[in-house]
C-alpha cells in the first residue's frame, strides 16, 4: 500500500502545498470504480429537511433508501418526534412497471390521517426519475384534499451530488417561506440557517442570540417547525452556517423578500466569536446588541479557557487530517485545531469548489496535502506518510483511522456531542485529547 498507485485521472484532484501549479480539478463526477466517500442527492435533501420534527417525511422508492436513513442522525427535537419514523412507499416490481403514483397517493392519504402532520415532504429517489411518476401532481392533489402543504422534493440520487440535494431541499423550503403571519416580528430578528441541532447545537446558538436581545424567528432546520418556517420571511437577517447547505434558500429570500444574509461558522472560539460580532454589527443601530455580544464572548471564553489551555499543552505539535463533506467546514476546523496546538497536514472534502480549495491552500502550511473526493486508500496512504495523530471525518473513515492506529473525531451528523459554540469547542478539545492520548495506542503491535 505504501507504493500506492494513484489513477492518472485522479492526479488533478490531489495537491501538495508548495508544489507549483494549482488548479484543483474538482466539482466533477467521481470516476467510476473509485471507492468514493460521496453520497447522493437524496442524502443531501434528507439531511437538510429531516430535522423538521412536525412534518411527515415520506420516501418514495424501494425500501433501501428509507431503511438506511432511518434515524441515523442525531437532530434533536424538543417536541414531536415524527421525523424519527421511517416512512417508505416500499415499491415492488409491479409498481416499477405500472408506476407508483397510486401507491404514493394512498400512502400520503393514510399517513396524513393517522399522524396529522403540519406538512409532508415526499422525496423522489433514483427510480422515480426513471419510471417517471408525476409526484408534483400527486402532492398537489393531496395538499388540496388535506389542507396542508405537501411538497415534492426532487432528490433523485443520480442527478448530482449531495450539494444538489441541498438545493432541492432549499427549493422545497422556499415553498413554505412566506406563508405565515409576520406582523408580530420585530426588527431585531434573524433566522438561523444551516444548523441542524445535532446534539442540541442549535439550542445553544439560539440562546446566544437571544441573550444578545435578538429574536430567533426560525431555525433552518434544527428542531424545526413548519409554523416557524412559514413566517421566517419576517426576519431582518439570515445567518447562514458554513456548510453552504442553505445558500440556495438564503439567496432566494434575499431576492424575493430583500433579506440579506451573512455566512458564519460556529465552530471554534475564533469563528464563533466572529459570528456573534458580525451579527451584532448588522444590528448596529442598537449598540446594546454589540455590548451584549462582547459580554457573552468574554464570559464564555473565560469559562472554558483554563481547561482549553490544559488540552493545548498536551496536544501541542500533534498532526491532524481532516476529511469533510463541504470544504467550508474545513476552514473552521483548521483554525480550531490550531487553537489547541495541532497542525493540519491533510485536508480534503467530498464536494469542495475551486475557490474553497484556493482558500484552503492559502490557510494551510507548506507540505499539506489537499484532496478532492478522495478514496480510502489515498486517505490512508497520506495519513501514514504524514504521520497523522488524529483523523477528523465521518462514519466511513472512523474504522479506517482506528485500524491505522490513529485517533478519531467525528465532526459529522452522527456525533453525539455538541461541537458548536464555546462549550462545543471544549467538547471538541476533550474528544480530540481523549482519542489522541488514549492508552490503547501504547498497546498497538
Amino acid at each position, binding site marked *: 500500500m505504501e507504493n500506492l498507485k494513484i489513477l492518472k485521472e485522479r492526479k488533478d484532484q490531489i495537491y501538495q502545498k508548495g508544489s507549483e501549479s494549482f488548479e484543483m480539478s474538482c466539482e466533477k463526477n467521481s470516476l467510476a470504480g473509485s471507492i*468514493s466517500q460521496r453520497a447522493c442527492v437524496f442524502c443531501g435533501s434528507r439531511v437538510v429537511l429531516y430535522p423538521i420534527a412536525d412534518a411527515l417525511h415520506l420516501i418514495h422508492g424501494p425500501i*433501501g433508501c428509507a431503511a438506511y436513513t*432511518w434515524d441515523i442522525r442525531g437532530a434533536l427535537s424538543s417536541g414531536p418526534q415524527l421525523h*424519527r419514523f421511517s416512512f*417508505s412507499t416500499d415499491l415492488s416490481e409491479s409498481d416499477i412497471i405500472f408506476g407508483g403514483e397510486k401507491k404514493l397517493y*394512498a400512502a400520503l392519504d393514510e399517513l396524513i390521517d393517522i399522524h396529522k402532520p403540519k406538512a409532508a415532504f415526499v422525496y423522489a429517489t433514483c427510480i422515480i426519475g426513471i419510471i417517471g411518476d408525476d409526484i408534483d401532481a400527486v402532492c398537489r392533489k393531496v395538499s388540496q384534499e388535506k389542507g396542508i402543504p405537501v411538497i415534492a422534493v426532487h432528490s433523485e440520487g*443520480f442527478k448530482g*451530488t449531495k450539494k444538489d440535494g441541498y438545493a432541492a431541499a432549499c427549493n422545497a423550503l422556499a415553498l413554505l417561506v412566506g406563508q405565515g403571519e409576520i406582523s408580530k416580528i420585530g426588527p431585531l430578528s434573524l433566522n438561523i440557517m444551516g444548523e441542524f441541532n445535532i446534539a442540541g447545537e442549535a439550542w445553544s446558538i439560539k440562546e446566544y442570540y437571544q441573550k444578545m436581545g435578538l429574536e430567533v424567528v426560525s431555525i433552518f432546520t434544527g428542531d424545526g417547525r413548519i409554523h416557524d418556517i412559514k413566517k421566517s420571511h419576517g426576519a431582518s437577517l439570515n445567518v447562514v452556517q458554513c456548510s453552504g447547505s442553505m445558500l440556495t434558500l438564503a439567496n432566494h429570500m434575499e431576492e424575493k423578500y430583500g433579506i440579506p444574509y451573512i455566512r458564519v461558522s460556529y465552530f471554534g472560539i475564533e469563528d464563533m466569536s466572529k459570528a456573534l460580532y458580525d451579527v451584532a454589527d448588522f444590528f448596529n443601530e442598537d449598540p446594546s446588541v454589540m455590548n451584549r455580544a462582547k459580554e457573552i464572548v468574554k464570559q464564555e471564553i473565560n469559562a472554558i479557557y483554563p481547561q482549553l489551555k490544559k488540552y493545548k499543552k498536551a496536544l501541542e505539535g500533534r498532526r491532524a487530517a481532516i476529511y469533510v463533506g463541504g470544504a467550508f467546514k474545513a476552514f473552521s476546523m483548521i483554525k480550531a485545531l490550531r487553537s489547541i496546538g495541532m497542525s493540519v497536514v491533510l485536508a480534503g472534502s467530498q464536494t469542495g469548489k475551486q475557490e474553497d480549495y484556493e482558500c484552503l491552500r492559502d490557510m494551510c502550511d507548506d507540505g499539506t496535502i489537499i484532496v478532492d473526493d478522495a478514496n480510502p486508500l489515498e486517505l490512508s496512504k497520506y495519513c501514514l506518510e504524514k504521520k497523522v495523530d488524529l483523523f477528523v471525518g465521518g462514519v466511513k473513515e472512523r474504522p479506517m483511522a482506528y485500524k491505522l492506529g490513529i485517533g478519531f473525531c467525528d465532526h459529522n451528523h452522527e456525533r453525539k456531542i455538541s461541537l458548536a459554540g464555546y462549550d462545543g469547542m471544549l467538547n471538541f478539545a476533550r474528544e480530540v485529547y481523549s482519542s489522541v492520548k488514549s492508552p490503547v495506542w501504547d498497546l498497538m503491535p
Partner: protein
Amino acid sequence: MLLRHTPLKIQDRKALSVNPAKTCQPIGAMYAALGIHGCLPHSHGSQGCCAYHRSTLTRHYKEPIMSGTSSFTEGASVFGGQANLLQAINNIFTIYEPDLIAVHTTCLSETIGDDVLQITRKARDDGKIPEGKHVIHASTPSYVGSHVTGFANMTKAMVNYFAESTGKKKNQINLIPGYVEPPDMEEIRRLAELMNLSTVMFPDTSGVLNGPQTGRYRMFPPGGVTIPELISTGDSMGTIAMGEYASGDAARVLDTKCKVPCKILDLPIGLQATDRYIDALRKQAGTEVPAQINFERGQLLDIITDMQAWFYGKKVALAGDPDQMIALSEFLVAIDMWPVYVVTGTPGKIFEKRINEITKNSPYPVKVKAGGDLFLLHQWIKNESVDLLIANTYGKYMARDSDIPFIRYGFPILDRIGHSYFPSVGYRGGMRLLEKILDAILDRKDRDSPEESFELVM
C-alpha cells in the same frame, strides 16, 4: 416518548412500509461478496446506494467496508451504464488490485435494464480483466425481496461462476452458512472440523469483518473463501446448506450444476436445529459424534434444565430475518417460552407456514407476518404486551416505549458489539442466547421487585 406516534388502532396498510424490518438486496450481496477472499464488491448504480450500504455495514461491524460504485449520472441513467462499468472494472483492477470484483445491481441499473453479464463479457474481450482475475455478478433489484434475497443471489452467483466438477470427487463437504454473523460462520466450521470433516464454506466473512487490530490497514484481510476453494465445491461429496431463504438456491444450483447432493437445514440455532446439523455432519463423516460436541450439548441442556422456571410461559415478540426467526422460534418453544408475535420484513409464503407449525401447540394466539414491519409489531405489542422482545437495534424504541426487556439480535445492530465476536449458532451459541434471555428477564425482575421480595438467589 419517541414512539408515542404509533397508534393503537391497526389498519390494513397496503401502500407503504413504516419502520421497516428489512432493507434492500444490494447490502446483502455486498456482505456475501466480502466473504470471498480478495474480493471487492461493486455496486452498479449511483453513488448514494453504495455509500449507504457501506455506512450501514460499517456501523454494524465497526470495520472499514470497501466497495466500488459505477457512479451513475444522468447520462448513464439514460444511455445505460455500460461505459461506467467498463471504466470501473479497469480502474479497480489498476488501483485496488483485488482478485475478483463481485458486481451487484441496484434498483436504478435494473430498471434501465443493464445487462451486466454481457458487459462483463465485453470487459473480458476488451482485455480489461487481467489474467487470473475474475468478475462475477448477481442481479439484485431491491424492489424484489430484501437484503436476504440479495445475499442468496450473490451466494448463488458464486456457484454459477466458479463451481466446477472435474469428475473426480474430493473428500470434502460444502457448507453454506446463510446470512449469519462472522462468529457464527466460524462456529459452523468448528463443529464440522470436530467431526473430522474437511470443508469449504462460502461465503465466509469470519476474519474479514471481525479481524484483529494489527496497527495496519489491509484492504483485503486474510479471511474469506478462496477462488480455488470455490471452484472445488463442484467436486465435494455433499453440501449442507443452512437457511432456506439465504442458502437454498445456491445449494440447489450446485446440485443441478455439479451433481453435489445437498441437504438444506434450518439455521443451527438452539438445541434441536443444532442436533439436526450435527446429525447431517455425522452422516457425511460416517463417524460417531465426538465427546466434545456431546459435552457442549449437555451443557446447553443443563442450563435449560436449571433455569426452566424462568423460561416457563414467557411471551416473546420477535422481528428479524426469516431463517433466524424460524430456528429461534423453535428454540423458544423448546424451552417453554412462547413466540406470540413474529415479524419478518422479507416476503415469502413458507415463513408464515413454518412459524404456525412450530407454534401450533401454543396456549396463546400467535400473530405472524412475512413482509411486515416494526410499526405493525409495535401496534401488536401496544395492544397486548409481551415479556420479551427480540429484534435488531431498532427494537429499542419499542422496548422503551412499552417498557419490555429487550435482546438485540439480527441486522443491523448499531449500538452493541457482541454479534461480531460471539456466535448464536451451535450449542455454544444456544448457551449465549440463553444467557442473554436470562439476563434480560432477571434484570427486569430485580428492577421491578418490591423490596420485600427482592431476591438474592434466583
